[in-house]
């Protein structure tokens, strides 16, 4: 069995924001259990919680790399337990002393067998939920994805609709939709379950989107679908982190209602990808492929990959083709109101930070 936390190799974890001693607030004696901290988002959420004075237990199979980033004085508030989210005993151990949970761990992939997604994303969520209730915890924040309510058609100014597993596209989205509904079923007055759905989180060091885009653009193999005119909304990493930490602290307001989190800056796909490329000195992608062709090709490739899985992620899937060729952007009014949060880093500032981080890496 594979899971996302294994797929992502952490090569030298780093922090988006400063981690000097003075950046950490005084201890507030509340411990948060964070799953999936070897991913970029999980790691940053853990660091931000620590900065704000929380104690943190991170839980994932590999080393999160968080510990090494912390100044000496903060390390005592930090604990790491390694294990799979489907392992009840390991989860139970991790939950020791925790007051709340932020559940990020998931198998995030465009390819793979349905069973594997169910195991990590659905059963894993059930285990963490049940163990948390068992441990007498009353605060639970589930990190989901807007794709749980994405049916492959264009989304424009969409609100925070319910997850629809029967309509969700692809294994990842469908399994997350099932998991989200599972989590929300547990929501009650004495067990608050909140759901945040950050949409396309990106930032320096992000291997999921940014580096794939940059690597392929550098080789000149990144196509645009239908000229890349689909308008999509994304979330810069710092904004996603702030929203999640805000969500955890405002579970009283948000529990029971899934909220999509984005920058609230819809951009054409071509402009977005081009902006990332140009920030690191690569020419913007300009080759266009009809979306229908990409979708058809994606469907074929998906089939091939499911029979003979490669080591790599498939170059195109139907889901990815849909994601890159149909608009999906969201109405952020309710989210911002309930979270009492607004994004601090604009897309443009995000590009600049990519440029700073990657320096000459992509310049030929």
């Amino acid at each position: 069995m594979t899971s996302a936390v294994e797929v992502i190799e952490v090569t030298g974890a780093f922090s988006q924001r400063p981690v000097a001693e003075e950046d950490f607030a005084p201890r507030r004696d509340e411990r948060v259990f964070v799953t999936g901290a070897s991913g970029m988002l999980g790691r940053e959420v853990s660091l931000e919680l620590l900065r704000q004075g929380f104690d943190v237990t991170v839980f994932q199979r590999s080393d999160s790399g968080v510990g090494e980033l912390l100044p000496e004085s903060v390390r005592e508030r930090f604990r790491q337990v390694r294990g799979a989210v489907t392992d009840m005993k390991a989860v139970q151990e991790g939950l020791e002393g925790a007051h709340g949970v932020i559940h990020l761990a998931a198998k995030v992939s465009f390819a793979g067998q349905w069973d594997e997604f169910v195991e990590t994303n659905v059963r894993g969520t059930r285990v963490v939920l049940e163990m948390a209730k068992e441990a007498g915890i009353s605060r639970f924040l589930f990190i989901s994805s807007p794709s749980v309510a994405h049916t492959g058609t264009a989304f424009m100014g969409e609100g925070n609709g319910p997850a629809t597993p029967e309509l969700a596209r692809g294994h990842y989205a469908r399994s997350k939709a099932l998991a989200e509904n599972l989590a929300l079923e547990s929501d009650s007055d004495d067990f608050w379950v909140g759901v945040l759905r950050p949409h396309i989180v990106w930032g320096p060091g992000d291997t999921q989107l940014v580096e794939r885009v940059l690597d392929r653009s550098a080789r000149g193999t990144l196509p645009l679908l239908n000229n890349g005119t689909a308008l999509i909304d994304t979330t810069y990493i710092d904004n996603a982190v702030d929203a999640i930490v805000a969500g955890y602290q405002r579970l009283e307001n948000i529990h029971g209602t899934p909220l999509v989190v984005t920058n609230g800056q819809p951009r054409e796909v071509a402009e977005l990808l081009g902006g990332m490329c140009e920030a690191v000195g690569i020419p913007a992608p300009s080759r266009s492929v009809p979306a229908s062709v990409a979708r058809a090709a994606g469907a074929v490739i998906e089939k091939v990959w499911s029979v003979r899985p490669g080591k790599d992620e498939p170059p195109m899937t139907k889901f990815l083709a849909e994601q890159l060729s149909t608009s999906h952007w969201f109405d952020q009014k309710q989210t911002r109101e309930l979270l009492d949060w607004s994004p601090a880093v604009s897309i443009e500032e995000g590009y600049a930070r990519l440029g700073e981080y990657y320096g000459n890496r992509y310049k030929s």
Partner: protein
Amino acid sequence: MLEQLTPDPQNWPGVDPRWSCMAQVISSAGVDAGHTRTWHYLDNQQVLREEGLEPVGIILAVHGNPTWSYLWRSVLAAGINAENPWRVIAVDQLDMGFSERTGTVRRLADRVRDLGDFTQHVGLDNTDLPVVILAHDWGGLISLGWALEHRDVVEAVALTNTAVFHDQIEKIPAALQLALNPAIHGWGTQKSTAFLDVTLHLAQNGGLDSVVYKTYAAPYRTAELRAGIRNFVADIPAGEATASYTDMVRIAEGIRDLHVPAFFQWGTKDPVFQRRYMADLQERMPQADVHRYENASHLVAEDEDIATPLFHWLEEQFLWNHTGRQAHQLAREEQQLHTDFEPMISEVLQRASDSSLAVVDMDSRNETQIASTLSWAELAQDINRVANGLEATGVRAGDRVNLMVPPGAKLTTLIYACLKIGAVIVVADTGLGAKGLTRALKGARPDFLVGIRPALVAARAMGWPGQKIAADPLPAVARKGLGVIASVADFSDISENTSYSVSPEDDAAVLYTSGSTGPAKGVVYTQRQISGMRDAIRHTYGLSAGTGLVAGFAPFALLGPALGATSVTPTMDVTRPKTLTASALSAAAAAIDATTIFASPAALMNVVRTANNLSEDQRNALKSVDLLLSAGAPLAVPLLEAVQSIVPQASIHTPYGMTEALPITDISFEEIKSALADGTERGLTGARDGVCVGRAVHGAEIQIAPLDNEGEPLEETTTEPGITGEIVVSAPHVKDRYDTLWVTERLSTATPGWHHTGDVGHFDEAGRLWVEGRLAHVLNTSQGVLTPVAMEQAAEEVPVVRRAAAVAVGPAGSATPVVIVETDPRAPQDGRANSALTAQVRQRVLQDTGIEVSAVLQVREHPTDIRHNSKIDRPLLARWAQKLLSGQKAKLKK
């Protein structure tokens, strides 16, 4: 036994099953008196009771052929409301819908009797509540026949596409003639579902939803069930010999003294019940309020929301002390806008023995050559001659006369001749395009068309209504071919004066909007209002008798003689303003020592373009001009500067107005400059974000109806600076009404006494008005309710951007702003703007307005209206952008 149907209302979308009722009624119709018949009908009474609502009255809704009570579901639903509840009874006629199949052939008289049997049974004959009939198609004739026998309960009539009278088979519309053809009839109506299918396929907007379609067809599945459809068609009184002809005539004549309020909602695309049936009904019931839906066909109840206007209308009739129109007229009176009424023709009559120049036409081929001149005395005499001739030809006061004659002495004479005899001039210019013009003229239904030969040819080809009168001499053959009944050239001179008696409240003119957003609207002015337009111009600009006026802008050209000004029409193709050259303008000015020029922006642009060729003399001729008016659209500062260099002594003014109120504000070039400086240098509140159009003209008052969170104007108006809202205006020269557009008129007079212009804007601290765009173009986005002009102006600051249009993409309230630009050099294709241009535009808009646009698109050329070539079709752009930005391929259709 005949097959009978059992209603299954749970399967009828849009119908509350509780509405479906049955009744056993003994027939008194001649065809089967004494038989008990089973009726099906929809009735919202039970629901009203359950919700504790006391109805204001009862609507009896009668369908036609081949529909059934399902047609009225929106009206039944709308009747259930707390403020203005109405019981609605929609009946299925016998042999139709889910009512009994009787096996009889029921004639018009039987059906009228049937309806009486039914209404007696359900207690309509002796109710204390007012009863309103609502009908469609043949239901119109039947229910009006019923109304004549139930005058004591019927208090209003509401009709949708129907007819009460046709005189002979030839005039029956082609579509129906086909159904009546014996070879077709039985097959088309009963043996097959052809008649049913054809009718249902008349639905617009992509046709009926498939479930709705099936519901309409449900009671007509088999030939046996369709017998009623056949018999209905067979009973159409197509000539005197047909069985129901006498009954039809009796009803059609009878409604002339049915003195109850009436409301007609008409889909003008109907191939069967065409506009002439509407006109016929209007003639029989002149009290009717009429709304034409230019995009609806026969099934107007499916094509448009007829229920909302119907209930608004009922509210005015039964709950208000005054109708909306009465309230509006009362409020206008209270505003005491009226000054002494001085007829348009006064000046001409007073100067009937003045031998000085009144009208000069420049030669159409040689711009320095004068083609013709008329002194005031000659003008008065010619007007007298034409007025007399028109009367002799049959033109009466109140008749509508469509003038299709280019500006110049002839048109001037015709206009004032019409004004003199009280005929209503219809001015629909070729700027509407052939299709728009045809639509406008069919809407206005002029009684006469006076035209030059090309117009008469076009009228013949396009079927423009009105008896034809030639403006020029025509050979006899051509006259016959074109159906011309008289020629202006043949009108003989007479010495005595034609009588002059017009009342200030009589209609004087129907003008047309440019139709840049939907079909062009006819705007009706009374004699008082059109004189008010002259007075506003006269007093605002201090124009006095003796002014020399170059008339380069059609709407104001007709004012010359009324102002007592000598007018000259320069050499140009009047249908294309951009053909006016600097030298032609100079020659025209020289011909009368002009001091004033009226022009349009397009004309001025060409004047500037051709000004380099002017000789010293030609330049000098323009130096005596002290006033230049440019109307139609705002002018950019660089263009104003270029114009100023051509007319160095002139004060340049750009009045702002619309067809419904011409003009409402005025601003001079000097004031434009100081307004801009107030915004940029002095930070004066409100002196930004829009086009400054200055202050109200003489007699006009302007207020702002602030926009709410959905972008809708509030009732309470204000003049406080910096508040954006719909611009509302009151003035003696504001229109009287829209022509047969009741719904549009109601919206435009929502604030009694005021005209809602459909433009949005705000005042600045100095009391100047700034226009921010059209209300219909307001962007309801997640960043708030935004107006387009400020964003567009900001985008146009980017050097390569020639013209910009801001539109919203996405659902109202959470939409996102998008800017679409036309560039110089011209973009190679429509689509995404490159990232650099996108970033520049986004940055500039953000900096100037604080608004962040999501995307910037480029087009080769913006789609614009034909008349001004300046009003960008933003709804079209928005649809295109929405499709493109959702990731689909999209083509911009122009």
